[in-house]
């Protein structure tokens, strides 16, 4: 089987499997985010559970980080290999005549999403790790001890129009990435046979609705507080 994952198609499988994992992760992440629009308490409860449950913290979180890093590194390696397959470029190449902009610019859209993830880590993940594991405060409470801190932190982050702007741009690029990537992942594992249109339609719905959900949450908190 190791030979399989060294083959060109095997690598596409690996790329698709990490994509599926990230596609499911986005649904879970958005579900939690959306609760913040409806109920401060439900959002706090979910956040506390996600932030302190050992299974999520020590099993799912490392897998997720590995998934993101793997998806990017593998994508980058494949891109380099693909570029080397054409040493001399065409003088004139009309790519728009036969393929979408999204399909030709996955490295660009993925790169923007990755840059956003760096910001996201600085905003949320590193402070979380600091409070929980360096300072040892696993309570999830505000400094005055009056209730959980998660909702307040979320609202605070979305005060800055600059951050919200960056957030919106990143999710538009994520939508473009998914508009090609979703169907592409299914195609790579051979699951589109006989149902390509269906997969494409589900992909379109997912690629627009999920990023839109994240954008709505950000704008909601920006304009409501």
């Amino acid at each position, binding site marked *: *089987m190791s*030979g*399989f994952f060294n*083959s*060109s*198609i*095997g*690598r*596409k*499988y690996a790329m698709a499997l990490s994509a599926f994992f990230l596609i499911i992760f986005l649904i879970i992440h958005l579900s939690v985010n959306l609760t913040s629009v409806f109920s401060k308490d439900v959002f706090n409860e979910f956040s506390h559970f996600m932030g302190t449950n050992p299974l999520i913290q020590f099993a799912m979180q490392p897998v997720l980080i590995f998934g993101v890093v793997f998806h990017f590194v593998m994508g980058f390696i*494949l891109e380099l*290999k*693909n*570029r*080397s*397959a*054409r*040493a*001399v*470029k*065409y*003088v*004139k*190449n*009309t*790519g728009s*005549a*036969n*393929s*979408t902009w999204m*399909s*030709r610019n*996955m490295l660009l859209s993925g790169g923007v999403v990755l840059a956003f993830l760096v910001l996201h880590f600085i905003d949320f993940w590193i402070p979380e790790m600091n409070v929980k594991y360096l300072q040892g405060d696993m309570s999830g409470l505000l400094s005055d001890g009056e209730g959980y801190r998660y909702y307040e932190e979320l609202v605070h982050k979305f005060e800055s129009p600059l951050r919200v702007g960056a957030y919106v741009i990143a999710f538009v690029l994520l939508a473009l990435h998914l508009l*090609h990537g979703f*169907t*592409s992942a299914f*195609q*790579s*594992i*051979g*699951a*589109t*046979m*006989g149902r*390509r249109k269906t997969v494409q339609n589900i992909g379109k719905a997912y690629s627009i609705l999920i990023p839109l959900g994240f954008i709505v949450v950000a704008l909601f908190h920006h304009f409501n507080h």
Partner: protein
Amino acid sequence: MKLTLKIWRQKDAKAKGKMVAYQLDDVSPDMSFLEMLDVLNQDLIDKDEEPIAFDHDCREGICGMCSMFINGRAHGPDREITVCQLHMRSFKDGDTITIEPWRAKAFPIIKDLIVDRSSFDRIQQAGGFISVNTSGNTQDANNIPISKYAADTAMDAATCIGCGACVASCKNSSAMLFVGAKVSQYALLPQGRVEAVDRVKNMVAQMDLEGFGNCTNTGACEVECPKGISLENIARMNRELVKANLIKF
């Protein structure tokens, strides 16, 4: 029609090539693209210049020799055609047309617009066949029932003429539409199932060895394929390779 042609000229495999501009003043819109090149070559011969080397054979859309990238697209504008099926009426008076050979590391240029596609032959030789004795004792084809769906889909895959437009159009120079079609035409039929495991493994291994890029599912190959080979064949090949590895690992 008056046309300006910018054509890739390269003396031999090792020489450094460049685009050279030519003028043609009296092109009929009824000419095929290859006839237009014939006229240009006759002009060049009359002027004692080296004619442009380009591949062509059947001139009826089935040989797939015409490895020309015209105005940024394999076989030029229009869908599901080869260059001999492209006519000058697809262009306008005064147009500038760029003509380049297929560009891929696995398709090295031999001269001008002629490329070496023997990498496709080697992929085919790695497994694109069934080992069957055809020395006069073959059984009646109708002894093995084959569904209409399988017969039609296998035939669709088998219409691939190995022209390489898929590789030329692909931003990654991937050969997966070609290999997918060749794997599929056998995978769909009972006669092909016997050697299916080794076939897909060996053909994909050879494809990787030849230095083609990896498919990123842009779909450019399907749009430019003169025979309308579907992306579904790539999905089938991907599936066949996993099946083959699960059976023997």
